[in-house]
């Protein structure tokens, strides 16, 4: 890639980032809603160490869990809906007719969604630290790696939806139908510890559950070795997503 091409790519990514911030619904669910949950439940449960959470406090488990929630929103909802509606409106078609390579057009979407997901997590961490004295026994690099894996797997899921569904509307409905059960059952908003055992064993198979478990584990300082099952689950989703969308993705 030449310098010029990189400049166009970063400019598009920057524009996409600004467009995201102008979209009140998207920014609310990615950036504001998780903070509201943190303040609401933080004010109820506080962050006192609790054997129920392995010696950590509520907030110490909520921050990685809500991060998983943001990953789910970003990948399943933001990314799939924006790609599907860009296709439906002919925006993808317009950019495909420029000097931008196809991978740059889709890559700018991924990077934009990844940055706002990361921004959402950073806001949670800052709020947790300032307001609730958030504890972080884990390794930052390790948590970041888990965050990248979870994000990429969910972005791949979003791409499958955008590729397979014929319209923006059907993408949106599919994304919602998949997202809401996960939001409540995967531990991303309500700790799975409080769910009945039957629901808990079912919810192990939801794709967001391994993201929650992996991030919570890494946050507490557990080793990757303890989470190989989750890593494998997410890697399979990621690979399947890339393969399926490479086969079925349409530009118009």
């Amino acid at each position, binding site marked *: 890639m030449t310098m010029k091409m990189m400049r166009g790519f970063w400019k598009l990514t920057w524009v996409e980032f*600004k467009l995201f911030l102008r979209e009140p619904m998207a920014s609310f669910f990615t950036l504001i809603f998780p903070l509201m949950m943190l303040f609401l439940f933080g004010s109820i449960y506080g962050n006192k160490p609790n054997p129920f959470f392995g010696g950590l406090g509520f907030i110490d488990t909520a921050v990685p869990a809500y991060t998983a929630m943001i990953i789910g929103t970003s990948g399943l909802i933001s990314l799939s809906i924006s790609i599907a509606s860009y296709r439906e409106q002919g*925006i993808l078609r317009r950019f495909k007719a420029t000097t931008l390579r196809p991978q740059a057009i889709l890559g700018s979407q991924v990077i934009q969604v990844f940055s706002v997901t990361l921004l959402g997590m950073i806001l949670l961490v800052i709020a947790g630290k300032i307001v609730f004295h958030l504890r972080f026994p884990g390794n930052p690099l390790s948590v970041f790696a888990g965050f990248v894996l979870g994000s990429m797997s969910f972005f791949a899921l979003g791409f499958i939806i955008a590729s397979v569904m014929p319209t923006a509307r059907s993408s949106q409905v599919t994304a919602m139908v998949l997202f809401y059960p996960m939001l409540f059952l995967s531990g991303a908003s309500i700790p799975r510890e409080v769910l009945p055992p039957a629901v808990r064993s079912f919810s192990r198979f939801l794709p967001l559950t391994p993201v929650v478990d992996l991030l919570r584990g890494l946050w507490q300082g557990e080793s990757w070795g303890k989470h190989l099952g989750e890593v494998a689950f997410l890697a399979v989703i990621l690979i399947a997503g890339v393969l399926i969308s490479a086969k079925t993705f349409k530009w118009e």
Partner: protein
Amino acid sequence: MPRPTVIEVENLRKTYGPVIAVETVSLEVYKGEIFGLVGPNGAGKTTSVECIEGLRRPDAGKLRVLGLDPGRDGYALRERIGVQLQESALQNRIKVWEALDLFASLNARSVPWEPLLDQLGLAEKRNAPFAKLSGGQKQRLYIALALVNDPEIIFLDELTTGLDPQARRAMWDLVRQVRDRGKTVVLTTHFMEEAERLCDRVAVMDHGRIVALDTPEKLIQSIGVESRVVFVLVQPADLTGLNGLEEVSRMEQTGDRIVVYGRSDQTVVEVVKFLSTNRVRFRDLRTEQPTMDDVFLTLTGREMRE
């Protein structure tokens, strides 16, 4: 001196499964002209143009655009052409200036985009989001985006569809200005009037083929349709003498409405002279020249209707 050729198309063919979008198209476009592909929807205009732009891969045929092969050198070609596409859009909330700034950054060569805003009458829409623009403003923005890399050829696909007549005429002026700046313009349209008024040369397309290609004047001449002198009689009069005039080929009367056919520009002069010599009282006299609509009708046997 013949003008240099910027686009050469030989036996272009494109099918989508069982559907033949373009059966065979051959044409040449010269530097600095406004070249029009006209024909009804589904005639294969857009498919032809998108093959020439390198956006679609033809099944067969030889294409050269600015000396490049659009299929192989598509990205190199995109640096040197500007395109406005049918059925495309920009992000709803992107601002006019952001779109121009972005598109300028995508090409190795670009012109400053601020003057383009003025030239296309978008200066006060600079900060307006794309979704808030009117149809005409969106089209003008597309032209600005197509011009921002200082292209040698600009492609406009159904530029004025959906615009009101006034906006359409303003758009024609813009296209002429683009040509007058030395650029070659290739446009598609299903408005015969647009082809006639705007294009230097026109290829008439029907069912995936070019059925005629020439200047609008020559196309109209070639079909041999007569011009008409039309008027309304104010009181009954004997007009049989009109048939004897040299420049009149025949005459039709429906109630008080008279249509006189003739092939030369002298027809109207003779008719008016006859009417005044014979003190015939008439009103609403006008002449009707054959148009590109007549060309299409003669060539295809069908009316050209939207």
